């Protein structure tokens, strides 16, 4: 009897010890899993963003003007540093195209066309446009839309084929190209756009810029002829500028009236003057 009790006790102690070890391992593994999941998410976002950016840059080239590109990167980065995702590898660029538009891609890519840049009159207006795109990235609008699209499209489109091909190589994000083409020509949800407007205005204001930069740009776009083909894609993929302006003005409701506002028109002018001459000749 005594012997049996001892044996039972020994078994119990051993199994408890075993439990402890297993628990420790489980906890450890859970930790690793969490790290791995976050890592994969960030990696996946970067890879998807890279493909989406490559698709856009396949449609129109980068403006061949390093000084201008560096200028836009500094303005954009300064705003992005005030966002909830300051640590992303933010990349800003001017696309050499007369169309009036701006784009974002997951992971920190933001593009503005030469056509839109030339409609702007101050750094605060540029910051306003970039802030809207930064907001899309911060809220992962394109990432979610692309993933959603991929899920929906699995039932037998070009995307499904692309996704099957992806199965051969887990690191192949070529399927994004088709999704990005659809997304950039159809646009995001209206709510995503309005949210990016609201957050964009706040980010520009946090960066010290005149918070009305984006509103003034919208007002100017609204005043451009609706049949101007340079605006066709922007108008197709976004709510009407007048509606966005109305919505923003309603949400802001004068609450940014008292803010000191840097507009940086002079520094902007110096750079865009170069673009007006140099950018055109570079083509």
């Amino acid at each position, binding site marked *: 009897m005594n012997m049996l009790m001892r044996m039972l006790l020994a078994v119990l102690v051993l199994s408890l010890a075993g439990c402890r070890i297993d628990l420790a391992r489980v906890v450890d593994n859970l930790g690793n899993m969490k790290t791995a999941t976050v890592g994969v998410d960030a990696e996946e976002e970067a890879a998807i963003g890279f493909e989406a950016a490559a698709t856009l840059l396949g449609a129109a080239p980068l403006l061949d003007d390093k000084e201008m590109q560096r200028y836009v990167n500094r303005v954009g980065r300064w705003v992005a540093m005030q966002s909830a995702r300051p640590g992303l590898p933010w990349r800003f660029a001017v696309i050499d195209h007369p169309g009036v538009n701006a784009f974002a891609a997951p992971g920190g890519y933001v593009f503005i066309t030469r056509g839109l840049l030339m409609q702007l009159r101050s750094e605060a207006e540029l910051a306003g446009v970039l802030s809207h795109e930064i907001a899309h990235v911060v809220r992962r609008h394109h990432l979610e839309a692309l993933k959603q699209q991929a899920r929906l499209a699995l039932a037998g489109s070009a995307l499904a084929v692309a996704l099957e091909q992806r199965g051969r190589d887990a690191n192949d994000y070529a399927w994004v190209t088709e999704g990005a083409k659809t997304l950039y020509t159809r646009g995001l949800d209206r709510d995503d756009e309005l949210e990016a407007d609201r957050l964009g205005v706040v980010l520009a204001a946090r960066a010290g810029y005149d918070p009305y930069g984006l509103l003034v740009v919208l007002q100017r776009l609204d005043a451009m002829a609706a049949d101007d083909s340079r605006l066709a894609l922007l108008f197709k993929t976004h709510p*009407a500028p007048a509606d966005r302006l109305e919505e923003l003005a309603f949400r802001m409701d004068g609450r940014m009236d008292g803010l000191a506002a840097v507009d940086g028109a002079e520094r902007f002018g110096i750079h865009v003057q170069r673009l007006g001459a140099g950018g055109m000749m570079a083509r």
Partner: protein
Amino acid sequence: MNWKIILACGLACLLPAVVLADTGTLTRAARILDAPFADAASRAELAQGTVVEVVTREGGWYLVRTSDGNEGWLRLSSLRLGEGAREKGASLFTSTGRAGARNASATTGIRGLSETEIRDAHADAAAVKRLDDFAAEDAETQRFAAEIGLAKRDVSALPKDVEKGGKR
């Protein structure tokens, strides 16, 4: 492309900004005020559709001048830049649902970054890698901001929006 076409494109790009510089039309009846504040004294009541000259802007307010010499501050959102109706058949004063804009067709000489161009695009990975050459570092960005007196500050989120790391 020869240089004449390039120049023509360039001029056409610049044109709208120049033409629309200084005129605005009231999208609704509004009072013009003594100062750019909501509680400033009223100077005059302007009817919807009044065409005004835009003198300057301060934050969300325009200083405007009417043809009969009235001058005062007006909320940015009460004004549409430009004079009169801009598009055939479109009402200037419907502030929502400008359906005309959505069906914009390509009628001018310059093509936008069009659907076709995006659809036909071949991904250019090398161009994305070139972006690294232009990227800004935090330290230089801070110096760049300070150059023109930009400093970060606390600004609350607008209603219906709380800034988080994104939706999960």
